[in-house]
């Protein structure tokens, strides 16, 4: 036996993690029961599908762009409405500004539950209740977006500490003064950065909204997929990729400008 060299607790924890990971992995893989031949057959078809995708077609571009615009607009409106609603609620929920403990706790529970249900399910539900179209998209997205914003805004408010709250309180200012004269001005930039970040995510979400029935470019993608029209699908995928990529770059820049970090 050689002299041991490692820091035992750290080493053991890491080993435990990997052990647990693979101990779970093996039975899960067995349970899912993936077929080897299915896999090989599928892989063999990759060159064929790649070739099909190469026949990219521009004929659908105008339609794609028009629908893309409405996807982006749905995201935009949704974020705008959500910001309006969530900003005040965030101050109700944050520990250092909550006017009432009970309301804050209630809100917290709501936010957790709403956030736990994936966005797509919300949209599916709103589509089922309101019918198709961008309106259902906006309403469906509203809930998870509001919950997300309340959460991150409140975290940001908590982080800003008690200093300003106390300063305004000490002058005899009201809750509204604390929020609007004290905290909002100092939190504005970080809020804007968060909003930009959420907008980026929301656009990515609205792009696929159409796939569960709300409007936008997703409807077209779903249609191409449904009819196996790979040429326009390739174009659609490209359009989506370029849009989301550019958006990511832009919002990153905005965030760096506003708060000096990309995340």
């Amino acid at each position, binding site marked *: 036996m050689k002299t041991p060299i490692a820091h035992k607790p750290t080493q053991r924890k890491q080993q435990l993690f990997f052990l647990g990971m693979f101990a779970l992995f093996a039975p899960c893989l067995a349970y899912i029961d993936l077929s080897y031949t299915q896999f090989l057959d599928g892989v063999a078809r990759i060159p064929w599908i790649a070739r099909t995708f190469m026949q990219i077609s521009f004929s659908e571009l105008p339609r794609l762009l028009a629908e893309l615009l409405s996807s982006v607009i749905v995201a935009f409106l949704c974020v705008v409405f959500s910001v309006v609603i969530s900003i005040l609620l965030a101050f109700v929920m944050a520990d250092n500004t909550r006017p009432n403990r009970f309301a804050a706790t209630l809100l917290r529970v709501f936010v957790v539950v709403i956030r736990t249900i994936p966005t797509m399910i919300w949209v599916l539900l709103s589509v089922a209740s*309101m*019918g198709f179209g961008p309106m*259902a998209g906006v309403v469906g997205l509203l809930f998870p977006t509001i919950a997300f914003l309340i959460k991150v805004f409140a975290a940001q408010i908590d982080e800003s500490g008690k200093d300003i709250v106390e300063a305004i309180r000490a002058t005899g200012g009201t809750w509204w003064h604390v929020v609007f004269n004290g905290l909002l001005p100092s939190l504005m930039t970080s809020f804007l950065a968060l909003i930009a970040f959420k907008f980026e995510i929301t656009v990515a979400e609205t792009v696929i909204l159409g796939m569960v029935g709300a409007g936008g470019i997703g409807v077209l993608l779903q249609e191409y997929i449904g*009819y*196996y029209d790979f040429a326009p699908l390739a174009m659609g995928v490209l359009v989506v990729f370029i849009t989301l990529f550019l958006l990511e770059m832009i919002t990153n820049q905005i965030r760096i400008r506003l708060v000096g970090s990309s995340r």
Partner: protein
Amino acid sequence: ACGSSGSAPKKFVIAYLPQESDEKRAEINKDFETKLYQQLGVPVESFKATSYNAAIEAMKNSKADLAVFGPFSYIVAVERAKVEPIAELTLPAMAGKPASVIIVPKNSPIKTVADLKGKTFGFVDPVSTTGHLLPKAVLVKQLGITPKELESGFFKEVSFAGGHDKAVLGVVRGQYDAAATASMIPATLESKGLIEKDSYRVIAESESLPGTAVGIRGNLPQDVKTKVKDFLLSYNYPEYFKNAFGSADAKFIEANDKNYVRIREIAKSLNLSPEDLLK
């Protein structure tokens, strides 16, 4: 979208449901909307719904006024959203042909439906007429067993593929021993190059279906209903039918709810009647 029940709507919204039989729809021809607009005097909009319950809920909530249904979704819509039949769309090309088929891979040992015992089977979707209702009825009839028996223990495993194309792909790619689908789907996929020629074999066919139902929101004012009905029955622009329903010689004819009695029977026998679902 629309005013409350009884009053004249401010705009008229048409929903096209996902058709089980349709070819690719290019942008639906605006001619139909324009002419209907001239008839009604209010703006006409149309939507393609991706799920039929969204369309039905929309009609229930007065957010859509007219919809082109599949047979099963029509009988559900009548029940859930108080939809009234107003016309029927006939596709002469489809008349008298089997609506759905049960297929197996080309070189499968399965020859008859009886051979399906203990195999894996793929339906399309629980609410699909041609991908679930009709084929199930075929199986029940040809095997001479009850739906209950069919569901419990006849097959090794039953899955819902989530789409006609997926059911066919499941058979051809080897995940299902057999699957049910609308009758023209395999040929379509073949022509797209997604499956090889002759990679499947049909072992059973269903009866044919009545035409596609066109339903209108029941609580619209009577004069609107009449206007729309007159318009539909006189409408004859082949380009529209070609784009919207894949067949230029399709046309709207007088509605006849009796045509759907058979579907109702089938649904009832399979415990999928609207009353069962909406209870």
